[in-house]
């Protein structure tokens, strides 16, 4: 049972990627209902609260924080195994607030996404520092857009060259896990645009294999933590 919470208030991409554009949120006695993709996958995003795709959410920090609090307090998720929270880029209001509001419960950890080049790693090192500062455990780093294989000649190109060693070197230096590398596949963008599951549309893609390996490692990490916590109790 999975819940996906989109706290990118200015740029909510999740509804489109899940094929849920145009859906609205319903209220009931027990709170806001998430929008369900499948019986076991519910989604919440500010995207569902906007009436037009042109609507901009031009809010300063405090108002964004208020909505994030509401999302956590008022959405009736039911019993869930995983709550996944998608964040905007940065180390600001949304990030501080989500960590603060969830401090009463426990967060298993953060998965940090980067692309291979230094201009991205540079920002990701800051994000890793942010996690240390707020005592958010890091499950690991994913190197996205990691190489492209030409469909015609099958040669590989590094479109975003890892001139400083990519995520691998950074993870070694900062002692965090590299969960995996996901290559570029034009089908990924297409599937997201159509709101379909890339994993179902392109089961043979090397990117699918990468995603599945990464997901498995995340699940193993979470299972281990629960096991450790139960031992302590």
């Amino acid at each position, binding site marked *: 049972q999975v819940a996906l919470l989109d706290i990118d208030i200015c740029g909510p991409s999740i509804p489109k990627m899940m094929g849920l554009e145009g859906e609205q949120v319903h209220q009931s006695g027990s709170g806001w209902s998430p929008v369900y993709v499948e019986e076991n996958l519910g989604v919440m995003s500010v995207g569902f609260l906007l009436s037009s795709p042109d609507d901009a959410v031009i809010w300063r920090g405090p108002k964004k924080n208020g909505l994030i609090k509401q999302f956590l307090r008022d959405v009736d998720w039911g019993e869930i195994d995983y709550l996944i929270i998608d964040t905007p880029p940065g180390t600001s209001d949304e990030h501080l607030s989500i960590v603060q509001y969830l401090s009463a419960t426990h967060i298993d950890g953060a998965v940090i996404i980067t692309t291979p080049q230094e201009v991205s790693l540079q920002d990701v090192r*800051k994000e890793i520092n942010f996690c240390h500062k707020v005592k958010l455990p890091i499950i690991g780093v994913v190197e996205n857009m990691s190489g492209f294989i030409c469909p015609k000649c099958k040669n590989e190109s590094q479109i975003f060259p890892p001139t400083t060693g990519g995520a691998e070197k950074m993870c070694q230096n900062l002692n965090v896990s590299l969960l995996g590398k996901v290559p570029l596949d034009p089908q990924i963008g297409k599937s997201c645009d159509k709101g379909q599951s890339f994993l179902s549309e392109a089961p043979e893609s090397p990117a699918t294999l990468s995603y599945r390996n990464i997901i498995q490692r995340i699940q193993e990490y979470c299972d281990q933590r629960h096991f450790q916590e139960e031992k302590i109790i």
Partner: protein
Amino acid sequence: AERSNLAGVRHILLVLSGKGGVGKSTISTELALSLRHRGKKVGILDVDLCGPSIPRMFQLQDSDVHQCDSGWVPVFVDQEKSISLMSIGFLLEKPDDAVVWRGPKKNALIKQFVADVAWGDLDFLIVDTPPGTSDEHISTVEALRPYKPLGAILVTTPQAVSVGDVRRELTFCKKTGLRVLGIVENMSGFVCPHCSECTNIFSKGGGEELAKHAGVPFLGCVPLDPQLSQSLEEGRDFIQEFPKSSAFPALAHIAQQILDGASQRSS
């Protein structure tokens, strides 16, 4: 009355996007380099406080900022002082230091960046922004309003998920009275260096369609170009060194349209 630090700046333009990772800082940097090659003096103001990318794109990440009587001295890219920069990146003690600030603190620094950098005389001031429509954007537009910016360039990648956010940025521009100079469709196609086959890795056409739908100029498609990425990583002048590269014509064309727009406005 004291002369404002922006009094010598002829044209101010903002580079915006609703979406992260689409190449705003790249476009800001390449536009500055293109304008320099056309003999213009350019400043870049980097108001992305959490993820300041501009210093590294010129290999100046270790530079410090000095003070003078009128405020902060921008960091010059070269001896001729043809390109000058200001970014929070120069103010950090260590490059990996995270700026974990809430809105109000970000707003205060942005006000200072707009008012207190001694730019001197510039033909163009390019303001590079983080993704979104929040504190940084509201504060920057408010602080720049008295100086009547030329307008904003919006950067998107071709696919619908990116365009979806840039539509919201267009609304932001409309609501804040910021003129839209046009839309750039970045990462638009990749030509394999081995066999020349073109693959639309991030789809194609979304930026152009959006421009048509919204009634704003379409400034052009910039393809994915590993030479461009490499240049940026190494702080090199792509415009000077790679005129035969696939991204060059598009970037030169964007700069030309900006120059045309600016001279139209001046006359």
